[in-house]
Every structure is written in structure tokens, then in C-alpha cells.
């Protein structure tokens, strides 16, 4: 790959082959990662999880993984159909960098770090620095995503995704919410409502200040909707053939409100 920068990386092929079929991509050489077992697994060391770039959605649904990364597992469950989940990978989702990539809001909310490798060596890039625009990353042509590092779950996690049908659908809007009870931190990120995934820092800070962290309760029930409204305000959706910006913003409001309600019961 170093000698010839042109071989293109093929993982599950579920984005790659669609582009080939429509002649949007015309590879002269393809390097398949399917047999690279080192990329396929996941490991836990201490309170961090290293997820191989070749981990498939179906692998993320295993209960052991789900316990450590519940929102990622839930995001994986919403991806495509069983056929897609049997072959599509998290590395492909990251490299494609679609604002509708379902694992991405979770990775943003978790402040994931991506390990990228080339003959020049490895580098570790925060996810929000790797992805710079719709389907645009800072990956060099000869760089490979090796793994993604996220913290092991230390509190409730939610992933909610709106689609116009009940399965196998591109997100019209999605919300990931992760709670770190130890560090009294909330991470919240939005999918499909901006050119890239959007972090809701202001809403996070507001909610963090309102939560009764000893009990994981929310004393003031008005905060749910305030949180939802602040997330909606952070979004910057567009009108397209899938939905309207008005509905998407409203959807974020509803999803973020519901996510916070699921994570923190009301009451002192």
C-alpha cells in the first residue's frame, strides 16, 4: 500500500460497492481487510475499550460488548438489515464519514480516539478531528484506520434514531447520550442534522449542573425539555428529499428530551 498509494481499502464493502456499482468509484487495485483478523476484535484494558476497525455490526450485538458499550450496540442494531450488519464495519462507517453514519454520534459523544496507521507510523486522532465535513476526513490515501478507543460505559447510554420506516432506514435525525457517573459528565451528539456530527456542549453543561449525581436523578423536570430545546438549537439541519429542517430540529428536541428522561429519573 505504501509503494502504491492507489489501492483502495475494502472492508465490508457496503458503502464501497455501492459506489463502484454507480461508477462513483473506479478502483484499479483493491486491498481487502476481510482476512485481517487483528482488525476484527475488541479488547478491554482497564476502563477503556479498543475496538478494531474491522468489527462488524453483528459483533457489536454480542452481550459482552453491549455491556461495555450499550449505545454503540444500540446504534449497531439500527444499521441496515441483517445482511448489512453481517458484513458492514465500524471502520467503514468512520471512513465514510456520512453525517448519517449511525455509530458516529455515539463515538462523538464518547470522545472516541481513532488510531490511524501508515508506513510513516501511527497517529491517534480524536474523532471530531478525523472527520472534517460530509464524507470528508483527514485520512491520507495510504492511511488505514486500525482501531477506535472509547471509555467503558460508566452510566446510562442511549441512542435514538428517527427513520421513516421501522427498520433498514437512513437516519432523519439521531441522538446519542452517554453518561459518565464517575466523572459526572454527559456527552450528547446529533446525527443527520448538520454537515458532520454535532456535539451539544452547552446542553451537556446545563444538564450536568442540574443533575443530582449521587442519585442519578433530575430534580427539576423542566430540565428535560430545556435540554431537548438546547440540543435542537445546536442542530443545523437542511431540507432535502428525506425530511425538512423543521421536522429534523423538532425531532432532535423530542429525542434529546426522551434520552435524558431515560437516563435520569425525575425527582430529588
Amino acid at each position, binding site marked *: 500500500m505504501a509503494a502504491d498509494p492507489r489501492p483502495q481499502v475494502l472492508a465490508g464493502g457496503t458503502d464501497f460497492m455501492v459506489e463502484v*456499482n*454507480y*461508477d462513483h468509484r473506479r478502483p484499479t487495485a483493491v486491498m481487502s481487510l476481510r482476512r485481517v483478523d487483528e482488525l476484527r476484535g475488541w479488547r478491554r484494558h482497564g476502563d477503556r475499550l479498543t475496538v478494531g476497525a474491522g468489527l462488524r455490526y453483528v459483533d457489536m450485538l454480542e452481550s459482552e460488548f453491549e455491556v461495555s458499550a450499550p449505545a454503540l450496540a*444500540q446504534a449497531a*442494531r*439500527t444499521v441496515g*438489515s441483517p445482511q448489512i450488519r453481517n458484513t458492514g464495519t465500524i471502520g467503514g462507517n468512520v471512513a465514510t464519514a456520512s453525517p448519517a453514519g449511525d455509530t458516529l454520534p455515539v463515538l462523538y459523544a464518547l470522545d472516541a480516539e481513532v488510531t490511524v496507521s501508515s508506513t510513516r507510523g501511527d497517529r491517534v486522532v480524536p474523532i471530531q478531528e478525523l472527520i472534517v465535513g460530509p464524507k470528508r476526513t483527514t485520512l491520507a490515501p495510504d492511511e488505514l484506520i486500525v482501531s477506535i478507543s472509547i471509555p467503558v460505559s460508566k452510566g446510562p447510554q442511549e*441512542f*435514538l*434514531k*428517527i*427513520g*421513516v*420506516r*421501522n*427498520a*433498514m*432506514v*437512513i*437516519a*432523519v435525525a*439521531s441522538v446519542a447520550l452517554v453518561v459518565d457517573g464517575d466523572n459526572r459528565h454527559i456527552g450528547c451528539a446529533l446525527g443527520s442534522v448538520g454537515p458532520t456530527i454535532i456535539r451539544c456542549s452547552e446542553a451537556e453543561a446545563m444538564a450536568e449542573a442540574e443533575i443530582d449525581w449521587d442519585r442519578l436523578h433530575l430534580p427539576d423536570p423542566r430540565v428535560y425539555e430545556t435540554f431537548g430545546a438546547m440540543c435542537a438549537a445546536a442542530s443545523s439541519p437542511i431540507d*432535502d*428529499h*428525506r*425530511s*425538512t429542517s*423543521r*421536522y429534523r430540529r*423538532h*425531532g432532535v428536541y*423530542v*429525542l434529546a428530551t*426522551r434520552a435524558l*428522561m431515560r437516563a435520569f429519573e425525575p425527582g430529588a
Partner: protein
Amino acid sequence: MADGVRVVDRPRTGIGVSTRRPDGGPKVRGEFAYSSDLHADRMLWGRTLRSPHAHARILSIDIGPALTIPGVSAVLTADDVPGRPTYGLTVPDQPVLARDIVRYEGEPVAIVAADHPDTARRAIASIVVEYEVLEAITDPQRALQSPAIHPDGNLIRTVPIRRGDVDAVGSVVVEGTYEMGIQDQAFLGPESGMAVPDGAGGVDLYVATQGLHQDHAQVAPCLGLAPEQVRLHLAGTGGAFGAREDLSMHVHACMLALHVNRPVKMSYLRDESFVGHVRRHPAHMWFRHHATPEGRLVKVEAQILLDGGAYASTSAYTAANSARFACGPYRVPNAVIDATCVRTNNAPSGAMRGFGVVQVCYAHESQMDKLAAAVGLDPVEIRLRNVLARGDELVTGQTVDVPAPVRECLEAAASVPMPPPASDVDDYGLPGGAGRTADRARIRRGVGYAVGFKNLAYAEGYDDDTRARCRLDGGVATITCAAAELGQGFVTVAEQITRTVLGVDQVVLAPASTATIGSAGSSASSRQTYMSGAAIAMACRQVAEGARRAVAHRHAVAVEALEIDEGRIVSRDLSIDIPIGRASEEPLEAEVNHHHRETFPMDPVTGQGDTDVSWVFAANRAVVDVDLDLGLVRVVQMATGQDVGKALNPLSVVGQIEGAVSQGLGLAVMEEVVTTDGIVRNPSFTDYLIPTTADMPPVEITLIEEPEDGAPFGAKGVGETACLSSTPAVVAAIRAATGLELSRVPVRPEDIALADVRREG
């Protein structure tokens, strides 16, 4: 090459028995050869250059660059069409290849043949077409005031119906305006086929189609060939739903093949397919219903506007269907109805399951619910007070002289036990499904009802006759019939009928082809079992008669002394008892040309006339859960009462109903071709959503069997009706859950979640 012969050697199953499809296993295992799988030695790949504009003048076409690409064998334009430059199912108004003007996005402009699909694709991309973009007329409400976009003008047809006292008024009046978006048939097998030159100037076309002979009648003139020089053969067809009524790649592939004297295959890509076939007519509809205080209909007024798109296709007849069925299966003494279909710069509209009736069924059923509310009756009762029955007159003045079990269908659907409450459902079963968006406190359940009916076979004086041949030789019955198997199960029914009449185990269906027999008509309008099924039964009976004569001759008895009894020739005294399959040493053969009863045109002013052959009825009850805040819908259960006459293959009937419900449900809540100024925005299955198994509820089906006299074993066609009434049933259920008006389908999440007025239920 396509091997259409299906030898069936399975346990003997006659009519009335659920019989598995011969092609079911291969299809599920991915072994079935569809038209897109065709292959021949030295085969080239054809491809189409299409207009990127909805309306434009072609100033010049430079094919030069394509011709220089290695591997490209032919590049053809309108100048190369050897015969008639236009084609069409009803009027030849559509160019084979656009010459001076393009009238919709996707209209074919040039075609190429090359050694590889990629070469063909590159060749297409290299052709330089200079366009002068014209204003696109895409709003059907403006079409009649706009300059003509076609020499034939912008009005395709207006169909009036004036019935009874046109000035009658009811003491209760409800009014509504309804709109339906564009639904695509969304078949999975793309438009595809292979043309093979015969070396003598003629051509064989293997193609996925609904009607070989109606294609043939258009293809041969465009090729400038005598009819016998062009032969069409049915290739494996992956669904149709109306979208294979019109030509697609047929003439193009033949032109290329004849030009290069090699087999040429064409298979559309999915994005191409979305502009490569006609779709359901989008509609704007205004209705006013008059009734007595007891809820009895006094008069129906309706103004229906259909967007026919750029070319006529079957639009004139679609408009007539919209007019004739605008009132639904109800007794309506007075009516003032106008259905108009106009030409626009949208892609052509044409046949789709429910043909012009799906649109009005959504409107009239919405109106019936409004009426129920206005007079204080429940939705089932208002319908039962007005349902049509055998012996009643339609608004065309025609008497319904076949079984019309509308009441029975509705009562059957209404009496199905309700599904468990939403509280018993796991998270994934709630609205939003796998996305886990639901908040149980914000889910409301609603129930909705609808009935619908439609004609069987063609109408208005059209003689869509059919032919079938039966040959009995050595105990094997071979049926030859050009009816297209699209997946609907004709192959199974044809075998069942043959087995039942002749009592033979082995039935062979010869490949469907224009070369071996005359037309069977199209696999459309719920007509193939009814028409070609009848023809097969008749041909088999004639063969049985021949067997009877042969036995009489051999045993030197009078023909009258023998009877045909369940596949055997039996003498009164039982001394002779011979299976028909072994009755004759010589092969026996019979061919039948079957016509349905004569129908008549609609009066051009009043719309009166005995236009129809027969009718089929259905009722649906939908139960939905709605997320009030997100506007996401889950259809929890569908109950269907379906008039079938007689279920020849109950398994297949159930399949048709479930499929129709899926398509109706899709239209209610998700299926829409979205366009901007005539340009399709969602030409893929990523964005044109059809229901998945997670969206399909259980369908609780009750078959109402009241055999129709003269129909094969009493069977009516069942392909369409459940899709008429399932859409309004779902919408009615959403209305019941939300209190919203919902005057447009598909109902989008924002139509619920962001509705300005909400009367919460």
C-alpha cells in the same frame, strides 16, 4: 438463455388446494434466472443516454467521442430508428429516441452497445448533447393553461359522469380536498432483456414484460419489420405491478442487436429504473358528499385531476377508472363527477396495481369517515348503510350482476379480534421500531376502516381476449398460453386447472412466446386467472371431449354413453373407466380463443354505459400505533375481507392480499417519488422506502367465496383490490389516533408531528 419450460411433477393438486409455486424454491435460493441474468455468447451490453432535463430542446448531439472508445460497437440516435419513430400502448405519442425535444427527465436520447457495461457507461458519458432548457410544466393544475408540450396537446382526457338528479342536495354535506403523491411500483427486477438477431434480418427478444403481444405490436413497427420477423419470449420477470405494461428497453435492444448483428442485453440500473417505467398517477381530488340525516348517500360530487406526465400511456383509461369508481362500492343515486388527466413534464404515469382507483378510494373513504362524524355514526355503520349489493346500479347505470359481498367483506374485517395493546409490545414493536424512539406515554392507538372495489379485465368496449392451447400426449398435458408470469402465480393456477379438468399428474407449461400462440392479453387488471384461466379450462375440456370421442370410437359405443368425470371417461354402466390421460393413442389437442362478455363505451356526456366485465370487492380494518410527538406510525394489524369468487390456490390468494396490503400501507405512510421541477430526488431504494418485514403487520384474511357464474370455477381476480382499501384504512386509523385531517398521502411524520391544529384523542 432463458429456459422457460417448467416441468412440474409434484403431488397431484387441483383447484382449491394451496399449492406451492414451482419457482418459489429457486427464487428464494437465488437460482431463478431473471431477465437481468440472461447471457449469450458474443453478447454486447446496451445502455441508454437520458435527458437530464424535464423539458429542453435538443440543439445538437455529437456521438463522435463515443465512437472512438475501444469496445464500442454502436451508437444510435433518433435518426437510426428504422421504422415508426414513436410508440405507445394506446396512442403512439412517445418517441423511441428523442429527436428535437425532451419532455421529461430520463427520456432516452441515444443508445450504445459495447463489450462491457463499463465501456457502455463511459460511451454514454462521452456523448455531447447541447440542450436549450425550457420551462418545465410540472404542476398539473397549470397544465391546461400552459403552452402545449406535445403536438397532441396537454389534455389527455376528461371523463364526465352525470347520474340522476344533478341538482339534488342532501341535508348533510361534507367536503374535502385530497392529494396523492407519486407511487412507484418498486419491482425488484429491473427493466431488462436480451435481443438476439436471427441472421435473416429478424430478431428474438427475451424480455421481462406483462404482455408479450402488446409489446410485439409496438416493437415490430418501430423496427420497420414484418410482425413475423420479430418474436418476443418471456424472460424471468421480477415483479411488475403495472410498470411492465409499457415498453422500456425493448426497441432499443433490438435496434442495437440488428445493427451490430450480435446479441445485446440491456438491464437498467436502479436509479434509471425510477425514470424507466410509468408510475402511479399523482392526484388532486375534490369531493362533496350529500347524505340524509340517517347517513344515506344522496349525491356525490367529485373533481379529479390526474397528472399523466409527458406521454399518454394508459392515462385515458386510468382517468375513466377514477371517474367510474369515484363513489366506491356504495349505492349512489345522483352523481356529478369529472376526472381529467393532463400532460406535464413529469415522467409518464401509467398502470399500477389499482389503476386509477387507488386514488379515489383514498378520497371517498376519507369522505365516508367525515360523513360518519357529521351524522354521528361509527365508520362501520355508515358504510353498512350504503354498501352496494348484487342487483344495484353503479353511477354508470350498469347493474352489478355478479356477487358483490361488500357487506360480508366489511363484517369479516370488522369482526377480527383486536391485536394486543401497545403495552404488551416490546420496544422494537412500537412506532420507530429499531430506532427505539418511542415514549410509551406518547403512543396513541387508532382503528380505521375502508372498503373498495374495482373492475376485472379491460373495460369500455375493449376486447382483451386470450388464447390457450392444450395438448395431451402420452399422459402429459402441455399448456401453451402467452400469459406473463410476473410472480403472481399464474403458472400454479394453470397447472391446477389442467390437473382438475384432465386428471393428469404431469403438466408442462410451454414457454410464453409470441412465436407459438396468439395473445393472452396482459397480466393486468386482475384478469389473467379470470381470462386465461378460463381459456385453459376450456381447452382442457375440449381435449377431454376428444378423449371421450376416442374412447367411444375404440369401444364402439355411442359418445353419449360416456361421461367425463373427474379426469376419467366413464360409461354409465361403469364397464368403461379410463383416465383421460390414457384415453387416446393419438395426441389430442385443442386451442381456444376466449372473449369476456361484450362491454360498451361510456357516453361522452353522461358517462353512462355497461362498461365493465365484472368487479371485485374488499374491505380493510387497520390498527395503528402513532407516536404523537414524532409522527412515526406502526401498523399493528391489518384485517382484510376479500371477495374472491373462489380461491383456486388459497396460498397464492393470501400472498396477493399480503402483497397488496404492503403496497397500500407503503402508500399510506412512506412510498413517494419526490420531485422538484420534474427532477426525481430519490431514485434509489435508499430513499424510496417500501415496507420491510418490520413494517408489515400480521394480515388477518377472510376469503369470501361466492362463485361468479361463467368465471373459471367461479374465481375472480384478486391481485388488486386489497391495495385499494388498505391505504385509506391506515390513514383513517392515524386520524382516529391523532384527530388530524390528513388530506394527503403518503402521510409524512411532519404531517403529524408538526400539524398546526391538533385535536388530541
